């Protein structure tokens, strides 16, 4: 049964915009709560979709295989969590948006993630460069608006400008890369390209490698891989916090899906494989080292999470570099799922804390263990899982990735990975130290947490711990 879930999400977004403009008296938070309920309904509906095998669909543009279906759910879940964060963050947004009436601009703030979600879901199923390009741009352009959303806040505007320029630059690379691949193979569909490459494996190597290289650069921008990571810290720090979380989870995951599909299509030719795998391994190693080392001296929580997001892109790239192994795809998907849980949990705690303290510094977490024990515990779990402590989902994610890399004999990458994990413990535990061993300032305002946020945080903590001990149900479920 086919069911256009992307169009449903798109219609929901348009409907929300209409309601927002024609009924200005409606409370915007109610609108967001309604959107969450509808997205949950769509999420449930995707379980009635039947995945069709990748190369079997009649239409070369759009594939509903198991991987695509999984990432549609991933996009829906991360959009729901982003909306929960956005509701918590709404007062801050209101402060930085000029408007004649209270809540002006909030409607758009809650609606834009929904359009992004539709783009992410199209990206998950895209099997043709035309489709990949359009979906990617829907996601990227809606992110430009979201990053620069607080237009009376210099940091947000500056982050938006930087993201705009570097995002558009990566679009330029992507398009030019697609051009050369089309020129050499005469195809834009990934299936067509791998058929052509299978027939003429030696077809003008240089031009083809040039095209693939440009596409790797552009996807490297999207997934925040070094040396294309320089926009990440600034944009993550300046963007509204829910958008930062959305950007670091959903945008990265969609980038990895496209990367996996593109790399898969080009691995048919052994000559290309011999060049592509070392290139990916090099990117992975560089990203691991850069992300983890640069995170060490950070004092701003959002910047720390930005570097941690670069570091996690490194572990995921180790998985992509081991694509030959059948376990690699599953390892990447599991890692992304773990990354979703722990990153959103960290941001869920960060928003109320920074709202109370008025800043995002790690020192604002001082004494949180006393001031808000529940939230401090949630942050503790998130940090331990991000660091990769056993019995959390983050540990299993790294374990599966390294296992896949061992099978492909990427020993250097595994050693590098293990060393950088140790490095990661240092900066993640800095936050834990601030929460439990540093005294709270005398005049620390109370941390107020809404019931919805509290419930979501408890849910995420439970999932991280349960899946960390007993991952079998989710592993059976993964594509």
């Amino acid at each position: 049964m086919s069911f256009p879930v992307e169009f449903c999400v798109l219609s929901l977004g348009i409907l929300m915009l209409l309601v927002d403009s024609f009924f200005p008296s409606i409370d915007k938070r109610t609108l967001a709560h309604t959107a969450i309920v509808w997205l949950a309904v769509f999420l449930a509906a995707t379980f009635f979709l039947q995945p069709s095998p990748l190369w079997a669909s009649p239409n070369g543009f759009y594939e509903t295989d198991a991987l695509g279906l999984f990432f549609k759910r991933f996009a829906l879940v991360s959009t729901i969590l982003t909306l929960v964060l956005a509701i918590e963050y709404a007062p801050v947004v209101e402060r930085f948006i000029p408007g004649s009436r209270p809540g002006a601009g909030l409607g758009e703030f809650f609606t834009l993630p929904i359009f992004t979600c539709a783009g992410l879901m199209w990206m998950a199923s895209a099997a043709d460069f035309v489709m990949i390009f359009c979906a990617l741009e829907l996601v990227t352009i809606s992110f430009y608006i979201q990053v620069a959303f607080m237009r009376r806040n210099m940091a947000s505007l500056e982050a938006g400008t930087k993201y705009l320029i570097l995002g558009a630059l990566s679009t330029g690379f992507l398009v030019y890369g697609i051009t050369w691949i089309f020129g050499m193979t005469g195809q834009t569909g990934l299936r067509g390209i791998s058929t052509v490459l299978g027939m003429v494996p030696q077809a003008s190597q240089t031009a083809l490698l040039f095209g693939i290289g440009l596409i790797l650069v552009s996807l490297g921008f999207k997934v925040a891989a070094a040396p294309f990571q320089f926009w990440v810290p600034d944009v993550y720090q300046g963007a509204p916090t829910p958008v930062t979380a959305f950007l670091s989870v959903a945008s990265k995951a969609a980038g990895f899906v496209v990367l996996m599909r593109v790399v898969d299509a080009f691995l048919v030719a052994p000559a290309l494989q011999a060049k592509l795998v070392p290139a990916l391994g090099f990117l992975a190693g560089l990203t691991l080292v850069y992300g983890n080392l640069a995170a060490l001296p950070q004092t701003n929580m959002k910047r720390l999470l930005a570097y941690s997001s670069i570091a996690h892109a490194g572990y995921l790239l180790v998985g992509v570099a081991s694509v030959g192994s059948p376990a690699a795809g599953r390892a990447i998907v599991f890692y992304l799922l773990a990354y979703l849980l722990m990153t959103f949990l960290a941001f869920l705690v960060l928003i109320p804390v920074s709202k109370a303290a008025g800043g995002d510094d790690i020192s604002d977490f001082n004494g949180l263990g006393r001031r808000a024990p529940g939230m401090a515990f949630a942050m503790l779990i998130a940090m331990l899982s991000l660091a990769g402590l056993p019995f959390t989902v983050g540990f299993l994610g790294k374990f599966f990735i390294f296992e896949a890399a061992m099978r492909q004999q990427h020993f250097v990458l595994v050693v590098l990975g293990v060393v950088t994990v140790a490095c990661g413990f240092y900066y993640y535990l800095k936050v834990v130290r601030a929460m439990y061993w540093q005294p709270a300032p005398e005049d620390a305002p109370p941390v107020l947490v809404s019931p919805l946020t509290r419930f979501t945080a408890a849910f995420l903590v439970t999932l991280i711990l349960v899946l960390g001990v007993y991952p079998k149900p989710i592993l059976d479920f993964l594509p």
Partner: protein
Amino acid sequence: MPTLANYLIVSGGLFSIGLVGVLLRRNILIIFMGLELMLNAANLSLVAFSRFNLGQDGLPGYNAQVLVFFIITVAAAEVAVGLAIIVALYRMRQTTHVEDLDTLKF
């Protein structure tokens, strides 16, 4: 009669001019022009490839030509959003120079 190579050289030139503009110029509006130039370089070579490399049935690859229309549309959307952000920035800081963007530490 221009050949495929002529078109590719022009398109490569446009792409390089755009890239150098993005990397070297300091005014955000000029940088934006460079970005547009890069997209148009891709458009030119896409159409050239599609026109010169005919398929077995003697027809050009139409997917590429459709992609060109999508690129034009997306570029327009990007400009709309981008200029809005730049205008908002100008209202806050009265500047369009990248050196003045120093709120976030590097």
